């Protein structure tokens, strides 16, 4: 049963990623990205990371996807990928290069042996993740607030119209 779930979710994830790569229209790409992020959230659930699955849906499929769709609506792109391609050779070359990269990763992952036997999966609810975040990783957790503040200020500075 869990294998069936995994393979269905994996097929959905790879299919939606392929849709993102192949469709010309960026709004289709954004919708494929939402599907992909949702399947990743479901894969988190199968790994018993319930908190991350919820955060994934809220932050990625909610906020970031809305941001992308909003940017697409503001900019109305779509004519970038028509016309002659100035870097056609490099783009064609990138496909075999990525194939080699994937083969290298497959060799490394296939030959690696993880030490020790598989451990029983740990629960990834909000209590377990919160305990780690607020004890061992308290300082990095606080630093993320500075990072987000810097991002907010930076976005305001970048998009402000000169009066």
């Amino acid at each position, binding site marked *: 049963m869990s294998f069936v779930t995994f393979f269905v979710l994996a097929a959905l994830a790879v299919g939606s990623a392929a849709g993102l790569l192949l469709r010309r229209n960026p709004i289709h790409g954004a919708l494929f990205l939402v599907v992909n992020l949702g399947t990743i959230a479901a894969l988190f659930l199968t790994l*018993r990371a319930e908190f991350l699955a919820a955060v994934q849906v809220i932050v990625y499929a909610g906020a*970031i996807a809305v941001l992308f769709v909003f940017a697409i609506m503001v900019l109305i792109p779509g004519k970038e990928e028509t016309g002659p391609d100035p870097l056609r050779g490099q783009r064609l070359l990138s496909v075999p290069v990525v194939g080699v990269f994937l083969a290298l990763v497959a060799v490394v992952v296939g030959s690696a042996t993880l030490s020790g036997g598989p451990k029983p999966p740990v629960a990834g609810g909000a209590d377990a993740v919160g305990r780690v975040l607020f004890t061992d990783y308290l300082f990095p957790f606080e630093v993320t607030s500075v990072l*987000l503040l810097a991002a907010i200020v930076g976005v305001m500075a970048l998009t402000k119209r000169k009066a």
Partner: protein
Amino acid sequence: MVPESYYVALSAVLFSMGVLGVLIRRNPLVIFMSIELMLNAANLALVAFGQRHGTTEGQALVFFVMCVAAAEVAVGLAIIVAIFRQRRRLSVDELSTLRG
């Protein structure tokens, strides 16, 4: 229980597709979405490895990756909007002003 290596393999495939998207697409918005794809693939591998080792620390790391991704998308889209205001075009191949 599905072995963790399956998740790592799926993560590798998704990451490669993200790399391919960055390399072959010309629209900066789609390139950004491909970067999100790569970040998510890395997150999946982190959670799988964390479960393999029986700790929640991998999930804490994923939490930080999500924070950085949110900040990165906000700043990146602001930069794209600023470029679009100046040039009225959105192809990454035309943005070669910094070339020496």
